[in-house]
């Protein structure tokens, strides 16, 4: 999957329900960024498995370069995608 993302341009990757800094999702974000795509994270919290200084720096660079929207995904997603859930039900 990561190789595919390196070989193909993705305009925008939405990372939902994960911080996007933990592998394997981190690898996908990285690949998309390397190809000039944008990464938008939707997550309930800015969680982290970062323990060492290198991890924190890595995560800092990641967060600076990604759009991060905090909140419950069941509220954020319908709004971000412009989908009226009430109409679906």
């Amino acid at each position, binding site marked *: 999957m990561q190789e595919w993302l390196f070989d193909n341009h993705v305009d925008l*990757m939405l*990372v939902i329900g994960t911080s996007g800094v933990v592998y394997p999702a981190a690898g996908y974000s990285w690949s998309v960024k390397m190809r000039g795509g944008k990464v938008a994270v939707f997550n309930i919290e800015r969680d982290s498995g970062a323990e060492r200084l290198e991890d924190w720096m890595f995560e800092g660079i990641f967060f600076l370069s990604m759009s991060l929207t905090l909140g419950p995904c069941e509220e954020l997603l319908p709004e971000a995608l412009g989908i009226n859930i009430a109409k679906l039900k």
Partner: protein
Amino acid sequence: MVWQFYAYRRHKARLAKPNSAHLALAEYTRQNPEKIFTITQNVDGLSSRAGHLETNLVAMHGDLWSLKCEKYNCDFVEKNLKDPIVPALAVSDKEFPDDEAVPTIPNGELPHCPKCNGLLRPAVVFFNEQLPGLIIPSVLITCRISYGHRAGVVI
């Protein structure tokens, strides 16, 4: 023990319902199937149950509702929505018990492969297992937006 844990996970996942995020993504994908592709790390099958187009969805860690044969030389895979899968794997609504309290189930009472009689297992990537080589569906080639998704937040 592994089967009992997975029987419990299946039982709990069946009780869960897709939330608004699953529904919104499924609907957006129906409206824009050429634009978006979803890779989910979830095994709960909730995206499918939300009506997500199967052609635009890959469950990279497998899903709880598929069983495969444990034998490396057997390619048997099946969809299996039964709860319980076999009588010995009936789940009560209590929490999953501690290790010591889990009764041992004789091998013969676990689900077996109809093709080679090997033991069946959930088609889910277990901890420490390698991801299977993903066959990227051809639809992915035409997709311009990709998307990663995990339901830490889902019910």
